[in-house]
């Protein structure tokens, strides 16, 4: 069962500036996480490095899939602990005020959905998973993946 993420945000900066923040390795290091080998070119393979944790070395493999300068950037995203790759797509749309509407789509998640997932996540399972597989939650609050990499 696939479940997709779609997040939209409005930024006061023009698409050119937002594009740079999405494609410049120094910028990505500042707001996303350490990144090696990234270039906004189709076929480019890169590596993101989150904080290693027990059960996960923190490595995410990426490959650029689609580039439409100032408009769209898409890449494959696969943590070494993920069975299947997912796809991250950034879509930039200029707004009337000179800003950008930025949309993030993270798609391709497979796995148990619906009732089974709810069952597995209820009660003691979360606690169990945290204890035995702490590396499975890159974004969980008690293991911030990159708290040391936020700007400033």
């Amino acid at each position: 069962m696939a479940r997709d993420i779609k997040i939209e945000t409005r930024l006061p900066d023009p698409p050119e500036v937002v594009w740079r923040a999405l494609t410049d390795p120094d910028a990505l290091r500042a707001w996303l996480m350490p990144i090696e080998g990234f270039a906004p070119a189709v076929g480019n393979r890169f590596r993101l490095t989150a904080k290693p944790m027990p059960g996960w070395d923190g490595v995410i493999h990426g490959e650029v899939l689609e580039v439409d300068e100032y408009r769209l950037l898409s890449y494959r995203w696969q943590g070494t602990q993920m069975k299947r790759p997912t796809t991250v797509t950034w879509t930039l749309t200029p707004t009337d005020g000179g800003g950008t509407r930025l949309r993030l789509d993270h798609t391709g998640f497979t796995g148990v959905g619906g009732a089974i997932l709810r069952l597995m996540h209820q009660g003691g399972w979360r606690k169990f998973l945290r204890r035995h597989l702490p590396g499975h939650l890159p974004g969980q609050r008690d293991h911030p993946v990159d708290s040391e990499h936020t700007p400033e």
Partner: protein
Amino acid sequence: MFHAVSDPTRRGVLEVLRDQEELAVGAIAERLEVSMPLLSRHLAVLRAAGLVVEQHSGRRRLYRLQPEPLHELHDWAATFAEFWTERLQGLAGYLRSTRPDPTGRGDVPDTGGSRPDGT
């Protein structure tokens, strides 16, 4: 894997083992109130899925949960929804911090654009 956890009795086995280091087959059967032959069949499915391992201690068969295959069951979408929400705030903060504002008369006069939190 999905098949293994789709059955309520098998999920019961996993939940019983989740809260114990290991349990004898008899103890599992007792807690779930299922017959030994039926439990054995369910345990075989769970073993085949790699979710449990069997160890022999004398004549007792002890079962233990193996968490690794549960990776597959993880709700990546929920995890990344939270992750990206945080990162997008980081992106907004980064953009604020890089906005040219040499005179201090920018559009975010108070924060100076250096804080990575949301607006």
